[in-house]
């Protein structure tokens, strides 16, 4: 599947371009949509979790900063999934006519989410210099962690987008699943505020290790990611990636029939 995809890498780029061209067409504020969602979520988290529920950031850090550091990778995960899951079904007219590598559809959605990610990341950098202590040198870990996240996102998206073709329940379940997943991932609160007894279960969620590691490397003074946090994520991301790729490749030649 990936060899075929590499030969059609132009196609993935074209699909990303298409999505980019389409996104703000006939919308009023256009580009501002890339910045508004993370800012709005940050604002809501500040009110609900910080002010009302009283969630505190660890000593010496700012709640907005630690939340934003997790929101950036989380939004990437969420955007990729919500746009990736229906992407195959939406392309039915091409699917039933042209024999292109089907995986380019969900993967190009990850590509477009990557653009949002870079805008959100810029926003984070601005915030750290405005209200935080700036970026530490360990921020250079960012691409490595991002690579790990892409692996995880690709696996989940490939699996769910192909399953969605056979059972549209998947698409209907995505919003609620994303909401629950967000609450069960230490995004709007730090992992430290989770009780010790619950933490082992928290680590079963590959996103937990990821967002915590992003925080560790991005927030001053900065440190290398902790291995015992990252290891479950690495295992989870790789196995989900393999599972998703296998299932997509095994079923993609039926897509045109069942759509």
């Amino acid at each position, binding site marked *: 599947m990936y060899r075929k995809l590499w030969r059609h890498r132009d196609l993935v780029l*074209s699909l990303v371009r298409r999505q980019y*061209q389409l996104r703000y067409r006939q919308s009023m504020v256009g580009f501002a949509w890339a910045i508004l969602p993370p800012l709005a979520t940050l604002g809501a988290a500040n009110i609900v979790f910080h002010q009302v529920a009283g969630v505190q950031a660890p000593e010496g850090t700012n709640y907005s900063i630690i939340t934003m550091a997790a929101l950036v990778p989380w939004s990437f995960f969420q955007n990729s999934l919500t746009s990736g899951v229906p992407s195959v079904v939406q392309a039915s007219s091409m699917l*039933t*006519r042209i024999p*292109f590598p089907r995986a380019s559809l969900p993967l190009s959605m990850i590509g477009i989410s990557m653009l949002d990610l870079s805008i959100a990341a810029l926003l984070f950098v601005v915030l750290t210099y405005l209200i935080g202590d700036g970026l530490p040198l360990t921020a250079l870990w960012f691409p490595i962690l991002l690579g790990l996240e892409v692996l995880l996102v690709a696996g989940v998206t490939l699996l769910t987008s192909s399953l969605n073709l056979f059972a549209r*329940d998947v698409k209907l379940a995505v919003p609620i699943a994303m909401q629950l997943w967000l609450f069960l991932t230490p995004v709007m609160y730090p992992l430290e505020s989770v009780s010790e007894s619950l933490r082992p279960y928290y680590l079963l969620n590959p996103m937990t290790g990821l967002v915590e590691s992003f925080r560790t490397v991005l927030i001053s003074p900065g440190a290398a990611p902790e291995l015992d946090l990252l290891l479950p994520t690495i295992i989870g991301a790789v196995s989900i990636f393999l599972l998703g790729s296998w299932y997509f490749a095994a079923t993609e*030649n039926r897509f*045109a029939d069942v759509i």
Partner: protein
Amino acid sequence: MDSVVVAEKITKTYRVGVGRARVREMTPPPFDSALSKVFPKWWWKGTFNALEDVSMEIAGGSCVGIVGHNGAGKTTLLKVLAEVTAPTSGKAIVRGRVAALVDALVGFHPELTGRENAFLLGSMHGFGRKEMASRIDDIFEFAEIEEMADTPVKRYSSGMSARLGFSIVTALELEILLVDEILAVGDANFQRKCIEWLEGYRKSGGTLLFVSHNLGLVRSMTERLVWLDHGRVVEEGPTDKVLPIYAQAMERRDGGHRVYNRKATKKAMESRGMHRWGSGGARVEEAHVNQTRPDGSALEVTIDYESDDVANGVFCVGFIDESGREIGAAISQPIPLDVGKGAIRCAIDNMPFRPGIYFPVVAIVSPEGEVRDRWRLDRAIVIERNGHQSVDGFGAIELPSAWSSSESTPRVMGRTS
């Protein structure tokens, strides 16, 4: 030349109905074949074969037609050969760049402009942006919609998107082209342009697989024909041989409607696909058409009729071509009719028709012009190429003509001999 398309015992099974969560489809291999062995009854419930054991070969550079009634599996076969869908069993081997033009939509995204869609479709067929950029002007020039290039495709008329779809395909330098009835859309001018392009494409060595209900087009474009019925190959061979059998079978299938209605108008009946109508009073009971010369150029038609109280009748034997156009008729003088049953014979010694397939119509008309019974027979006559030159595009009538060499008059066309 070698075969560039080989279909080996292709079977394609679909499931009918919408279904809920489709466990059978979502089970990935190798678990699906295991399941189908453990629960064969449940597994194969509600399935039908769109294609069954279809085998065929297409030589490089040839043009093969696929005919069959609706639901015969023509489009499914194209999709399997284009690798849009995988056969349930059997194998399709296609050597070379292939594309299927299944219909006018060709997979456009409605929100994108024509230009953006062209780039996207190009990249789906493996063309990079640069390669497409050098062709894009030609594409819109061929489609004759340059002014629409930067308008979203959703605002195109169906004719425009068909033009664009075909034009993009012309730019893709394909070795094998699978065309499904796309020429049915667009105006006559563009159709002619497409056909000209297809002819040029074939001359330059392209291979063409062609699905159409337009038998005239099939006859002029293809050299071999595959006739599919309910997913099986009924007949496969040279077009000249297969087409007449197919045409007759189609006529037999569709024909046989008997309608008598005093108020019935010709238009209303024909729009309902009726092959027989008239005001009655005198009826054609039976009509036999015999081709008395092997090439089909002479006919003898016998008409058995029955008259209630009508004293005179004008008999007509007419011919309709593949596209339903009325070509010509033999028309009698008013003939006194026997009350009760009678018979009449019509001999046509020299059909002035060019090679092709024609469908006879017999009719009894009153001397005042009232159609009493008009019956499109459920058979076809074939006029073969025997002695005729096969030249396309000059209509159905061959004019009686005498030709002589002009060499004795050297001034013709300013040529010196």
